[in-house]
């Protein structure tokens, strides 16, 4: 992140605005807990068909 010093009488340059990816950086290799398998029983569903 770029840090720009300013005096009170000086307007902030546009380049000093915070960008979203400066604030919330997410590691590219972060592993999200994956749920790869889901199981259901179809017992009792005979009448549905």
């Amino acid at each position, binding site marked *: 992140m770029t840090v720009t010093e300013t005096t009170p009488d000086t307007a902030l340059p546009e380049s000093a605005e915070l960008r979203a990816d400066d604030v919330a950086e997410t590691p590219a290799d972060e592993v999200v807990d994956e749920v790869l*398998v889901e199981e259901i029983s179809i017992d009792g569903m005979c009448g549905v068909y």
Partner: protein
Amino acid sequence: MPDTETTAPRPGATPATAGFDPAARYRLSPRVGLRPEPFGALAYHFDTRRLVFLKSTDLVDLVNALADHPSAAAAIDHTVEPRRRSAFVTALASLAESGVVEPAVEPLLEHPA
């Protein structure tokens, strides 16, 4: 009302890997039909009448390749990038528990180079 039951692990739950040995060789059970789907595959076990959603095409590839490797761990290492390994070990353990995959009994065939 139909008697449905979901067994997806809850967030934060301890992975159910008991009974699954990554060092052993596994295969897709011959009592299971695997139908490709856009999200992965739908497995149906003809004995237990249970449906299992395989929610990743990589997991489907892994299950289909299990019997071609000397161990489940070797199949995972060959198919899945390291950072996703833990999730796939847990997934295979779940599939083993539900009978979708089972220890392979036939010898591993060596493919000529």
